């Protein structure tokens, strides 16, 4: 018997919602790291990375010693915290992936400094990734967070307080937003590789030729929708078929 355990922050919810729709995914289980009892999910104590006890117990209760495929969706929103809208003190930066036209009179930050800012902001989430990687016993992947929504108009139409903030500060150009997302993705991919775990990119059918999230998958500026969650489930289950023991 095999089971699947998805552990993560908000990105795991679209996957969970998709799983609830079909018995095909009945063996998928979910742990939401935003639950109070799981905070903080990891800490450094006396130089060691220590996983939250309630979380490790919850993992062990679900796994029950059975073979399990683990998929993590840790973090994944920081690129939008820093790079969805313009900072009140505007700046621009070049990136290695997409040509961005220079904006006159707007100061340029070096790309490596932008990377330094985002990687510093990810330090807790990367710690959680490492703590989970060192605790679970089984095939393990980190899921790439959904690529950005390319459409400025769609983002400006975001409802609620989120939309108000977007309209107040203005949407960053899509190429720079892509760069913020890609820096974050690369940081998680590098950490996953260091921990000896896999890294699954967003399902290819959900990504347009420029690397952005296709419209069918949009939910809000940060998250994929339930359809996207279904694509991820299919992808993860497909990946598990490559693991001999499962």
């Amino acid at each position, binding site marked *: 018997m095999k089971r699947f355990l998805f552990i993560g*922050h*908000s990105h795991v*919810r*679209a996957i*969970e*919602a998709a799983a*609830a*729709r079909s018995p095909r995914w009945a063996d998928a289980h979910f742990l*939401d790291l*935003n639950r109070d009892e799981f905070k903080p999910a990891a800490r450094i104590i006396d130089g060691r990375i220590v996983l939250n006890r309630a979380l490790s117990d919850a993992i062990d209760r679900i796994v029950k010693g059975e073979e399990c495929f683990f998929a993590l969706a840790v973090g994944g*929103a920081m690129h*939008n*915290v*820093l790079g*969805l*809208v313009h*900072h*009140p*003190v505007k*700046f621009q930066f*070049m*990136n*290695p992936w997409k040509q961005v036209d*220079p904006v006159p009179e707007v*100061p*340029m*930050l*070096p*790309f*490596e*400094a932008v990377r*330094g*800012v985002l990687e*510093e*902001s990810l330090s807790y989430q990367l710690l959680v990734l490492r703590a989970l990687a060192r605790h679970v016993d089984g095939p393990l992947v980190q899921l790439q967070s959904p690529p950005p*929504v390319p*459409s400025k108009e*769609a*983002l400006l*139409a*975001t409802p*609620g*307080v*989120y939309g108000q*903030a977007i309209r107040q*500060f203005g949407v960053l150009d899509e190429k720079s937003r892509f760069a913020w997302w890609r820096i974050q993705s690369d940081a998680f991919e590098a950490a996953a590789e260091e921990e000896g775990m896999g890294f699954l990119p967003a399902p290819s059918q959900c990504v347009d030729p420029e690397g952005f999230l296709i419209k069918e998958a*949009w*939910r*809000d*500026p*940060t*998250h994929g*929708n*339930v*359809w996207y969650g279904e694509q991820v489930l299919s992808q993860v289950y497909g990946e598990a078929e490559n693991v001999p023991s499962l």
Partner: protein
Amino acid sequence: MSHPYKDLPDYAFWRRSVVECNEVNPAVSPSFSLRPHEKVATAGSCFAQHIARHLKKRGFSYYIAEPAHPIMSEDVARTFNYGTFSCRYGNVYTSLQLKQLIERVYGEFVPHESAWQLETGLWVDPFRPQIQPRGFISVDELERDRSQHFASVRHMLSSMDVFIFTLGLTECWVSRSDGSVFPICPGVSGGKFDHEAYRFQNLTVREIVTDMSWVIDRLRAIRPGLKILLTVSPVPLMATAAGGRHVLSATTYSKSVLRVAAEELCEAQDMVDYFPSYEIITGPNARGSYFASDLRSVTENGVDHVMRAFIRSYTDQKADAEMVNVSTQREDDHVEKMEAIIQTNCDEQALDPLVLRTL
């Protein structure tokens, strides 16, 4: 019996002012004083970084003309050399380097070499090879950053009130093709060393005085009334390329040349003072205690002594006045606000995860 020594002040006597003195302060004849609102800019070798840091702590208007963006934390800003000196020029070790920096920012000298590619495929600025870890992602980015940096330096030169320059080295490496001087030997932090392309130069007193005289005249033309303070770095050479010479001897020679040059400049120029941080750190009074275990790095106690002497001699402040609590955390409300909004959005997902929301 009358003689010239009879009426000299205490500081002219070794026993009174070095042996029996509680805390040596050789800065006895300042030609100007610093006022708190005056913009103090710094440049020079590693030792100048200490001065910059302490000026900030003591509430002086340490002038940063190329500040870090508020989105950067203090740690990231420091890593990328924002605030290390007044602009992001990195260490300016020699008088020749300072002269060429000024020429370059005004477009009067354009070196043949513009960018060095690393094995990683990234690029470094030959004249600021260690300004940021990993380097620049393209020549285009490097040149845009340099252009922005030059604008900051021009702004600094035209608006500073005091310029503190720490002379660090006499040894340097120079391009044979156009005489451009590099802060670090090509091949050490980028670039490829080639005897045909580069030559070693050990600057003489005459060369330093000539270059610094040009610098002072140029700075005063841009900013009349500028006060200038020269110091000599007490940090010994990491290594010498002056063949056949022990590094200790090379260090003594180098620092002696710098010290003599600084003295000649102060004698010849108004409102140019030599500040004796070198003597405070290396003099017998310190008994070697101001060097760390590597016998190169200056201890914090040593820097504190230097700054107390500086405050006593050049300001109205009390030397033991309370330090300004300089926050180590840069505040960026915008990031906190966006984080809260996005977290709320993430939390709201839990309320109705089955709803297919379309943008």
